[in-house]
């Protein structure tokens, strides 16, 4: 009897221990600690890759940095970053960079929650608007001196390095962002439709020519409504309707969203939906599904951007892919040849990292490598992706697709930030809702503009 009692007590003790340990596991560091239901997060500990080529640290002082990326599958979706980190760690055996990828929809939420709980990583990708919010609260490090002293500013193509109002630098541009249509020349040839970039279509020509596809059961533009941000090309349209010219006045309250130019923009979006330019199941498909379907041969064009060149190259018709800024507008504002062409989002270094000199130096060493000649070469030649830095290699040796896309980045169209990067944090969601609402016929152009203004007023 006494033995049974003893066994019961021991059993109860171990059960209690398991409960406590499982609670401790729930609060361990990493992507799960934020408590956000991240359905697409993965942790890639690059220090465990390539064990055969790993080099033992030459000094006892090993510096570990955490880097949060805004894509779930870093190796596939941001190969340039993945390869740069891998190469950097090989060159710097005493530095370990833990990369954590989270789908873009969840990344911002994760960063926000981490800032509240003090769990921000050492380096992270950030939307420009979020960067400014974090900077205002003191969560980010001032990179100005390091950028200039190390000559990192010289690596960038002109116009992409963003300075704050006081000429400080808190965010380094992440990757080239040119929103564009990729189009399948085989489908265009099949229906005898000319190439839009060659013929420089205006809006009416765009809509009318695409009706040929509609009449033949081909979706003109693949896009995914479950990814509300999949309206990058529409943001380029808004740029052509004067957004960069007006945004300062709108942010300060001097000008309203309900103005003629923006109403014209929303009217075009209404026409976009009414003319069946999108798939019939656009509301139940996300961007990645839309892109995968287009790569599989569905649809004449896909609404995407130059960041997708590596995935687009997987298509069987990769050598028959054209790229296009989208149509020009006869009733637009200013220069017709203006578009979103900038460094999308940015890298920030947290103030927490900057408190540790060794970590901060390692982080800046990484960025010096990442944006420098070797990092740029890795992006272009191994990652098959474009950067916002100057590439000194022979571009003719790159794939034809990458050359075409690169030409889009380097052409003489005037580049601006994404419209949502110029809006206050949190407003982007309302903008996406407004544009999709008009395209899907749920809002009128007037209602969409008023919704934006109401958000600003609140």
């Amino acid at each position, binding site marked *: 009897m006494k033995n049974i009692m003893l066994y019961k007590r021991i059993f109860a003790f171990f059960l209690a221990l398991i409960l406590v340990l499982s609670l401790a596991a729930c609060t361990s560091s990493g992507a799960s600690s934020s408590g956000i239901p991240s359905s697409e997060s993965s942790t890639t500990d690059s220090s465990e890759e390539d064990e055969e080529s790993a080099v033992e640290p030459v000094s006892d002082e090993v510096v570990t940095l955490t880097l949060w990326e805004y894509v779930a599958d870093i190796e596939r979706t941001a190969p340039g970053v993945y390869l740069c980190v891998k190469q950097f760690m090989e060159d710097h055996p005493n530095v370990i960079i833990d990369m954590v990828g989270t789908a873009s929809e969840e990344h911002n939420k994760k960063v926000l929650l981490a800032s509240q709980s003090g769990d921000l990583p050492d380096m992270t990708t950030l939307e420009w608007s979020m960067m400014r919010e974090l900077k205002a609260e003191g969560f980010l490090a001032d990179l100005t001196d390091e950028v200039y002293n190390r000559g990192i500013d010289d690596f960038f193509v002109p116009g992409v390095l963003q300075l704050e109002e006081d000429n400080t630098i808190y965010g380094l541009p992440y990757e080239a962002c040119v929103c564009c249509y990729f189009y399948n020349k085989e489908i265009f040839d099949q229906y005898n439709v000319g190439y839009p970039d060659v013929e420089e279509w205006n809006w009416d020509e765009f809509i009318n020519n695409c009706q040929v596809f509609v009449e033949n059961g081909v979706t003109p533009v693949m896009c995914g*409504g479950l990814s509300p941000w999949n309206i990058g090309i529409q943001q380029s349209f808004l740029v052509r309707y004067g957004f960069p010219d007006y945004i300062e006045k709108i942010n300060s309250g001097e000008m309203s969203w309900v103005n003629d130019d923006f109403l014209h923009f929303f009217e075009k979006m209404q026409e976009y939906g009414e003319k069946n330019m999108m798939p019939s199941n656009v509301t139940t498909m996300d961007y990645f599904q839309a892109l995968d379907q287009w790569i599989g041969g569905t649809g004449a064009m896909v609404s995407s951007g130059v960041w997708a060149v590596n995935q687009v190259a997987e298509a069987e018709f990769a050598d028959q892919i054209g790229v296009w800024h989208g149509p020009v507008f006869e009733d637009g504002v200013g220069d017709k040849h203006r578009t979103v062409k900038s460094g999308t989002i940015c890298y920030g270094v947290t103030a927490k990292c900057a408190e540790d000199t060794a970590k901060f130096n390692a982080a800046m060493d990484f960025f010096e490598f990442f944006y420098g000649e070797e990092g740029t070469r890795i992006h272009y030649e191994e990652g098959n992706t474009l950067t916002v830095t100057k590439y000194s290699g022979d571009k003719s040796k790159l794939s034809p697709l990458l050359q075409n896309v690169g030409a889009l980045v380097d052409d003489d169209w005037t580049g601006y930030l994404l419209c949502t990067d110029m809006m206050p944090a949190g407003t982007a969601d309302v903008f996406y809702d407004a544009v999709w609402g008009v395209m899907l016929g749920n809002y009128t152009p007037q209602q969409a503009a008023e919704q934006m203004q109401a958000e600003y007023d609140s």
Partner: protein
Amino acid sequence: MRWLSTIRNKLILHIPSFLFFTFYSVLSVIMAIYYSFTDFKGLGTPEFIGFRNYSRIFSDAIFLTAFNNTLIILVLSSVILLPLSFAWAYILDIPFKGNGLVKVMSFTPYVIAPIIVGTIWLFILDPEIGLLSSFFRAIGKPGWIHQWIGGDKLTPYSVTIVWVWQTMCFHSTIMLAGLKSISHDIYEAASVDGAGRIKTIFFITLPLMKETFITNIALQITGGLKIFEVVNELTGGGPNHKSETLITYMYSITFSRYKYGYGMSLSVLVLIISAVFSIGYIKNARQKLSD
């Protein structure tokens, strides 16, 4: 077992659960109530704004849409779920070969992660590429295809179907426990008196299972009010918030638009609605029982 039955030891053993509940449940609710009276945006210091968030709720058209959708799901699922789960429990109560395996297999939908459930049903209900639409095309009835999800009207009803599919087994399990608790002597006595199967169900089984039904309805109300993953995966609350439920809208406001204060006021309102519905229903039902 005397050492376990002392009050002191009982209290000590309860401490971990109590701490866990206090930290993760009670404290979270208190923090939510606090933020609901502020204009907190996720960063910086929250500023107290009184009841402004609450006064905004009832003029918010999207909230009213979300409330309407949630009500549709709740009412419909009550009408469908309770009879269905009772019927299934009744069948499972019949001894037959393989009964145990059927019980286990029927519980499968409930153990699948809700996000996976949403993804599975997305590929069934998608109006273009979904299994249902493909089936109608295959049998030559393309006219039967509707915008099951992603449209203006049918999404709450589709969500109800998915919700019932996912939770029926859970409610059946509770119903089955209720069925098992009824003594067979009563059925024997009824049978001796000449009562058939139908009369037995309506005049003996159902009355004796009233407590079980009360429990099921209360669980169904609280579960229905917090539907999130299924809606999030099927439609993301779209298009343009037309398929939002209370929780998906709260999530969107809080984490996508960074309006933590307003989002917390929505969550407090959901808490109050949930408490009023479930506690009110249980009290009322139990009072009728005792009468």
